[in-house]
């Protein structure tokens, strides 16, 4: 058999046991009471002279301040430094660090990306087994083999034996 196509297998394959999966959760029941934004800080690392960081520089000049005002609980660090590729690093409250390359992206695209990262929780982006989750799936009591049987089978005790 010829080789599996290597290189750009970024999203990962969806075998059930071959790739990791998780259940739908929210971090510490976020949203039940108060909603806490899970994005802690965004670091924008770009070089002040490289050509592919032009979108990043435009983002910083035009849009970054508005973004920071709209998301007051996110700390935005802007770092011009001489790294080879411009990168947007998002750190979440549960410790997940996510790096996104922003080479040759326009400032609108970077804004869209930043808004998307701001809305995410830091949970892993892997296959979610079910699109729903409840802590209390049963209100009337989950079925067990004696649910629909006559209650004489479940009653025990000295009163019964006396009869």
């Amino acid at each position, binding site marked *: 058999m010829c080789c599996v196509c290597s290189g750009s297998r970024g999203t990962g394959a*969806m075998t059930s046991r071959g790739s990791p999966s998780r259940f739908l959760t929210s971090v510490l029941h976020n949203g039940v009471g108060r909603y806490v934004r899970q994005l802690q800080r965004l670091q924008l690392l770009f070089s002040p002279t490289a050509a592919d960081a032009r979108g990043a520089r435009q983002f910083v000049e035009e849009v970054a301040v508005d973004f920071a005002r709209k998301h007051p609980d996110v700390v935005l660090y802007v770092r011009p430094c001489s790294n080879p590729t411009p990168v947007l690093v998002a750190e979440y409250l549960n410790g997940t660090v996510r790096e996104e390359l922003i080479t040759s992206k326009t400032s609108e695209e970077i804004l869209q990306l930043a808004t998307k990262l701001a809305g995410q929780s830091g949970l892993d982006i892997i296959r979610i087994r079910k699109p729903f989750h409840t802590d209390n799936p049963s209100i009337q009591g989950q079925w067990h083999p004696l649910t629909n049987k006559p209650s004489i089978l479940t009653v025990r005790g000295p009163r019964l034996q006396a009869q």
Partner: protein
Amino acid sequence: MVVLSGARWLRCRLTDRFWRVQEVLKYARHFRGRKNRCYKLAVRSVRRAFVKSTKARREKKRFLRALWITRIGAASLEHGLKYPSFISNLLKSQVELNRKVIADLAIYEPKTFKSLAALAQRRRQEGFLAALGDGKEPEGIFSRIVHRQY
């Protein structure tokens, strides 16, 4: 100076063979035998696993529906009805719940399922009366069709 073709005596060594191999082997780690360790065997198994997982998505829908039907049949037998009559009488009473929801109700809300079974049973009786009773009994309540108000 523009160079149209690179010097042909240049050689370059492949330096990331390890990671290229790991990309494939990571999907084979839970396999049995040497195909979870040896790249040549793993490549074939991983490709077959991917193909099977793609094709199985169509089968999964059929499998889950069959599972729901089995569960609904077992639950309705507890209440004295068989699956075909349960489903057909529910549909005739304009209860348009799908099998997934009815199966979940049977597991997690047994009293609701009991009332659904009772509804289907009553509609069944009304159907028999309408077919065999020759018009002497009044029309059944659950046999009335409710038309949409909009």
